[in-house]
């Protein structure tokens, strides 16, 4: 069941954190359920390859 804005501001947060780990840490300190994604650039960051991949998917 997809969330909505109303549910977001009225129900407990459950977070997927992409990038800065410090943000996940501060959410955990506040007892928020969070999964840390140690994001790395897709296809080594090569934009042409990423565009191609997006078209294929």
């Amino acid at each position: 069941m997809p969330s909505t804005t109303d549910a977001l501001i009225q129900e407990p947060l459950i977070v997927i954190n992409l990038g800065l780990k410090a943000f996940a840490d501060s959410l955990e300190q506040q007892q928020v359920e969070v999964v840390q994604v140690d994001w790395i650039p897709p296809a080594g960051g090569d934009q042409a390859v990423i565009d191609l991949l997006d078209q294929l998917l």
Partner: protein
Amino acid sequence: MATGVITRRNQYYDSVFLMGVSKRISGFPGVQQNAVLMGTDANKEVLSSLGIRDPQLDAAQPSDLIVAVIADTQAIVADVLANLDDYLAGGVAPSATANPHTFEDGLEQKPNANLAVVSVPGEFAAREARKALDAGLNVFLFSDHVSIEDELAIKQLAAQKKLLVMGPGCGTSIINGVGIGFANVVRKGNIGVVAAAGTGLQEFTSQIHNAGLGISNAIGTGGDDPSDYIGGLTTFAALAALERDPQTELIAIVSKPPGAKTLAKLIERIRNCKKPVIGCFLGAHVDPQAQFENFRRASTIDEAVNLALKLSGSKPALTAKGPTSADLQRVTQERSSWAPEQKYLRGLFAGGTFCYQSQQILLASGIPVYSNAPLDKNYQLSDPNRSREHTLVDMGADEYTVGRPHPMIYGAMRKQRILAESDDPQVAILLLDFILGYNASTDPVGELLDALLQSKRNASLRGGNLTVVASVCGTDGDPQGFAVQMKLLRQAGVHVFQTNAQAASFCAALLK
């Protein structure tokens, strides 16, 4: 002076980790400057502007680590680069961790997630935001340097899906009592906030907390949201959500100047809002006729705080009417300590909203100020690194932060600029802001203290006195300790105020 560069293929780290490495390298004797960053196009441009060019850089990709060092001798450069692994020690490359590496894998672990917090490099951020929206998640988009076209497209997608995109460039929000990004520790309450002004949101929510009340939700929209191009898509969605939110009884909007069309539409929307709304549109002209039962205008964040307290049945907590009589006594004392040539104000801000608000307060007192982010376009600094006459600089602006840590996280850039300003014998006043809260520097005052004392000494040696004025944005619950930071400033002879508006008004009185 010698320069050296090293690149490492497929060794990706986040920007906070890279900042730590850069800090460690800058402590090495003889190192003048260093850059530790990923090989994105924006970062490569920064290196080029520093005069660092190397064939290795052309081939570097966003997943490749670049370390550049400028030092007194080639031997020092070689030493630092040869020991790079020691400087990187303690950090684990993301590709080696057990955590998921993609949004899809993260979603598999938390299929019921309702928010994605995105802080990946700007050129990849819109792609990740789209994936989150497609999966039914709201998005807090911290990343900067997302194109305005991408911003519009993802906000339109969010509107179709009845989801919210906070950002891009959204530094802070408080959702259902939880601080995200650079939020201060504030209690829960019944006041809701919509803000297109990150540090404005922090100042408003901190002062509400300090006055004993609390915040239901404070929703950051990103600074470009109220532009006519974006049309306030997030602002309107947030306002509607707070209108429906049973915890919220009163709504405050704090914003940098909105586009004229968007502002008119917003005023009309507020007219039909079922809850009272306070509007603080810094630097914008709001038609004085736009005054109706449920709408109150505030010209500063302090006024907005006082109105919120009043509407909640509490007494106003802030002196919004300018300096007190005790302040005016200090004004006379300070002015008499200046050397004859000292006459200019220099403001160096970590918070963009504080730079805007200070300009507004000074302009209202008839004091024109130059800025890299001017309210009046006639006062645009031609070179952001060179102040002229009265100048206020937003040091969190893009020209300072691409590939370098934001001054809210690390004070090195502001420290250099403070020392540079204090070399100018015409400078009489230095105006600063210090921002506490989650994810901000662990000791923002401590980082700049030596530079402040040195600057005051420089002025004394010239037979004058440098007046330093500052405000601290934060609460007693913040990890840095509000009282400790205030005390450090007072001990250094700084005139400290609880809010930026009070500090800017004090400066206006000093200059009259």
